């Protein structure tokens, strides 16, 4: 079965919800519809199933406009799984699945046939719902209910499943269970899947292609790794993100970089001496508060290096597994001299990066305020036979201030600037 959407526009009264949406879906594809609330995802889905009247010729099934199909014919092509289904009425799970046969039963004067019962049985087998076949639907858990609804959809023997945020009310277990089930049906039964999904990472993991909608327009469509880029996500969701690869599935993985994307950048410069992944959280807090952060010296493979790059902040880097070179140290000192104050994270100190502590001492000598962030009950960070602890004690004696975390530091900062 082929599905084409050509210049599909739809308005609720004056409000245009879909503006000339066009794309094609090939047989057996798994397509995710994504976009912020109100971008038109659900409306698009409802136009596909002809629940909302789309302009004629806009949705074509096997090259024919959906208006040329009867409602019952469409019910055998598309099966819908809504966000959640509840009813106060005491249907059993079996009753619900049997409802999927309605579009196949030729007349209201005949009952369900043996063949119908077999289709229902198979649908329940595939969705692992046979074991609660006789239980009351409304008494099942959210995940079980959703499986039953998917079984009902399968009983329609559709070519295409249309799902509207099928996991939105489920816990994390349930979410993966349902998505795995849908993927299985997509692979094994060859059913085309078009799903409105709210979770980008869920979409990246399961979809062959993603259509990203924004304000009724398809902003981008293609494989997840092409669609889910920091730029598209920023333009559609207004959110700064970083993209990683899931180490197990190789799917792209989207992480919000900051929850406060529009901070006032006041330009006060801070230099962070870090390493071993201890600097990332501090960097992010300082960055979110509008400071211009720099950091160093870290090795290129260090998590702090990755974090600094994600935040696009200056970082003094050293090649992996090498000592801090003189050049790097000098660069570090230069950044320190240009900063209003210095923050030192509790990075593990070894012979390779001992110079970073010396840089902190140099900062004090330059008259800079130095804050040492040292969480309570931190195991020793000294991997250089006591020299690190001695130097830290010396820093504290010379006026470095110790805080348990970065937010305490920020509370002290205004005083520093005044003084």
């Amino acid at each position, binding site marked *: 079965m082929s599905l084409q959407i050509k210049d599909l526009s739809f308005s609720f009264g004056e409000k245009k919800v879909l503006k000339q949406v066009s794309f094609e879906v090939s047989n057996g594809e798994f397509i995710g519809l994504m976009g912020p609330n109100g971008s038109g995802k659900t409306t698009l889905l409802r136009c596909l199933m002809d629940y909302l009247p789309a302009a004629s010729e806009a949705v074509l099934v096997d090259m024919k406009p959906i208006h040329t199909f009867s409602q019952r014919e469409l019910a055998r092509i598309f099966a819908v799984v809504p966000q959640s289904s509840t009813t106060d*009425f005491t249907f059993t799970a079996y009753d619900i699945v049997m409802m999927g046969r309605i579009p196949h039963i030729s007349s209201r004067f005949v009952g369900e046939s043996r063949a119908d019962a077999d289709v229902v049985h198979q649908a329940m087998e595939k969705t692992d719902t046979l074991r609660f076949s006789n239980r009351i639907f409304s008494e099942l858990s959210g995940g079980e209910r959703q499986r039953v609804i998917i079984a009902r959809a399968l009983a329609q023997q559709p070519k295409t499943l249309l799902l509207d945020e099928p996991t939105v009310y489920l816990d994390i277990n349930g979410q993966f269970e349902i998505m795995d089930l849908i993927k299985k049906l997509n692979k094994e039964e060859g059913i085309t899947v078009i799903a409105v999904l709210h979770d980008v990472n869920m979409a990246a993991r399961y979809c062959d292609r993603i259509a990203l909608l924004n304000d009724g327009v398809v902003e981008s469509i293609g494989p997840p790794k092409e669609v889910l880029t920091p730029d598209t996500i920023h333009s559609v969701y207004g959110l700064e993100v970083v993209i990683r690869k899931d180490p197990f599935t190789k799917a792209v993985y989207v992480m919000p970089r900051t929850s406060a994307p529009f901070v006032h950048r006041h330009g006060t410069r801070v230099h962070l001496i870090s390493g071993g992944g201890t600097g990332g959280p501090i960097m992010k807090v300082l960055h979110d508060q509008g400071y211009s952060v720099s950091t160093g010296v870290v090795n290129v493979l260090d998590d702090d290096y990755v974090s600094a790059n994600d935040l696009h902040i200056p970082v003094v880097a050293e090649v992996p597994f090498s000592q801090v070179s003189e050049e790097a140290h000098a660069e570090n000192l230069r950044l320190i001299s240009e900063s209003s104050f210095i923050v030192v994270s509790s990075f593990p100190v070894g012979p390779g990066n001992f110079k970073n502590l010396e840089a902190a001492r140099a900062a004090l000598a330059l008259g800079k305020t130095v804050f040492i962030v040292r969480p309570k009950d931190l195991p020793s960070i000294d991997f250089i036979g006591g020299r690190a602890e001695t130097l830290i004690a010396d820093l504290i004696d010379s006026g470095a201030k110790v805080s348990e975390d970065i937010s305490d530091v920020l509370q002290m900062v205004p005083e520093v600037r005044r003084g």
Partner: protein
Amino acid sequence: MVASDPRKPGSDEMSSVSRRRTLILLGLAGLLALSILVALFIGTLGPIGPSAQHRISYGDALKAIFTRTGEWENIFWDVRIPRVLLAGLVGAALACAGTAMQAVFRNPLADPFIIGVSSGAALGAATAGLIGLTAAVSIFLPPFFAFITALVTVFVVYALGTVRGKVYADTLLLSGVAVAAFLGAIVSFLIYFVREQFHQLIFWLLGSLTLASWDMVLVVAIAAVIGSLLIFLHGRDLNALLLGDETAHNLGVDPEFLRKLMLGVAAMMTATAVAFTGIIGFVGLIVPHMMRLVFGADHRILVPAATLFGGTFLILCDAVARTVAAPTELPVGVITALCGGPFFIYLLRRSRLGGEMG
């Protein structure tokens, strides 16, 4: 792949479902027949009854009923048999209408009485009676006028309970209660205004089967049979409607058309019943709910089950109404309300505790 092998699991479930359906309906039909027979025996004159002076033997009663001979023939064939049959048909019509309304409103608390449709029908029939268009002129006049006003009422209440396309259960029920009270007041006003007798008012507001005649039996039978068949034939569609408009549409059902058709049919059945017996409350609430508790919500069982049991229920309620305060008769609506009121509160509490209503 069509499996005709009875050992296949799907087929097993199938045949057990249809066997169960047949058994249920046979059982309920048997119960109805039994209740008719028992109700015929019960009465001031009869084998079972409150006054010992007027005892008729079972033999004489059976003889009068089945051979239309003997000294008691008129009692049975002119009075009691039409009355019991009318009770059965009215009960069946109200219960079936209630079942359809509950599905349409997706709310187990809906019923022709609570939604105000019965009051609407009573207004039409009472007005027709007061301006001289009585059953004596034509047996079809009171139900016709009742149908017009019932239809208007059901769609007014539906519109009041719907906000931007969504039916709000609480709004719907409150609108229904308000409309019912308002229309009931108009009925009372009209009856006082034209100085009719007090018993007329009681008749309309509490319901009674005292005026039962064969004509009425015939008219209500037509309405009940056509109505319940139409509703039964849309049983699968009603099932689908309960999963929401979107799902119903996706299963090939037109939700808006189905709602209008079912409300129209329910109004027709209610109107015909009310036109001859006044407002008998709660039958359409209690019976579908009891049937749902026992047999589940599948309308292909529920509709016929509620229809059959509605008949049984009202026949028994009327038998109690006739005899419990002998020698006077209670309006049958008193008995159904005595059962229905507490039942309604129980359902309301339960749905509140369950957190979901409609």
